């Protein structure tokens, strides 16, 4: 095993988790089900944060662990930081009920 720059949990995921800080304008490779996928990182991704590995349109589901972790609140390009500024959770949302 070698140290990954970012970890993808399931093949259906559209985000990867940074295993180290990733800097803007760097090219990384992530393993998706044993296949290396190239991602051009466009923003600083802090350790533990998510980077989009595919284009995600506003309103699309964001998938990690092969499960829905929220919706994109804006269009997200591959290589972009995916966090609370462009990802909204779908659950525990009392603010949607009132």
């Amino acid at each position: 095993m070698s140290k990954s720059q970012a970890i993808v949990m399931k093949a259906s995921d559209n985000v990867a988790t940074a295993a180290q800080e990733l800097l803007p304008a760097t090219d990384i490779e992530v393993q998706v089900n044993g296949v290396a996928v190239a991602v051009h990182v466009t923003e600083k991704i802090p350790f533990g944060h998510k980077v989009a590995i595919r284009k995600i349109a506003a309103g699309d589901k964001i998938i990690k662990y092969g499960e829905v972790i929220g919706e994109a609140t804006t269009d997200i390009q591959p290589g972009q930081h995916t966090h609370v500024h462009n990802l909204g959770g779908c659950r525990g949302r009392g603010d949607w009920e009132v």
Partner: protein
Amino acid sequence: MEFMGYRRPDGAAGIRNHVLVIPTVVCANQVARGISQAVKGSVWVEHQHGCSQLAPDAAQTARVFVGHGTNSNVYGVVVVGLGCEVVRAQEVAAEITRQCPYKPVHCVIIQDAGGSYKAIAAGSIAAHRMVEQASSLAREPIAVSELILGTECGGSDACSGLAANPALGAASDLLVDAGGTSIISETPELIGAEHILAGRAVSQEVSDRCIATIKAFEDNANAMGVDMRGGNPTPGNIAGGLSSIEEKSLGCVYKGGTRPLVDVIGYARKITKKGLIYMDTPGNDIEQLTGMAAGGCHICIFTTGRGTPTGSAIVPTIKVASNTAMYTKLTDNMDINAGTIVDGEETIQQVGQRILAEMIRVASGKLTKAEILGHNDFGIQRIGPTL
């Protein structure tokens, strides 16, 4: 597989021999602390409850005290009451004795004793005698199938779900396969992952209870008319990379491993079945740990990404770091590093084996860092308003 533990007269197995001082009401906290400080080898807890509580809260508070007193890691108990509170110290002491007739239990009421110093003196004499007796007991080999493990995660980061929680899940599976018991809890941190847990239930009835318990919690949160975010995931979780409650939950649920879900039980309810059990607790670390201890768990394994010092007074709490940077920084508090998974040095299974080995060492007497620090964290989940 065996550990070296204490065999109680009713056949229960314990991994510690604590003499526990419990105040049944907030007003008795100082006396309980005074007793414990006077008697080396005793431990105490303190809290804000025991009076001015509606019946469901009072009953839950009493159940937590009784559960701590009857926990098989506890050799004997000194119960301290004030004398005019809702949760009666005499009744708590009597219930511990009813459930564990062999256990030394001493009850001190401050108003009857004639004040704080006299109550501390009476409680100290009783605790002193218990510590003397407890320290003469010898450990003996006991099968790991008798161990009840509480799993917990707190101060999570994005690596918790990648490393520490799946590794704890692997350890939990190993324990369950050996015939032991593992508790998963933290209901708000199962929101969004309930289908994974319920899908493993041994029956439709257990599956339905799992889903209903989690839905009830989410409905309660939604009734407040706010986004859970900020409360959970916490600001620290968000700084660590977690973006939503679903993401946190999907990482959390891994710590329960992959074995069938055999039962769903309420907060601080007694663990009576073997295998994987889901206890309905809040996500708050201390309230969760307290509920699992009251349910009878022997040992807790607590995964953390941000770094959390928590430890129960009576349940040894092993801290597993999800990332190497935090493990290296928080050496005072971390027992095990699972960050080796993210570093590419070990597999989830290898770390799971390492966690199981440490669990057996701690069950046999090795102190956790939280124990060495003297942690006695204790918090009771509240249901309704204080009167």
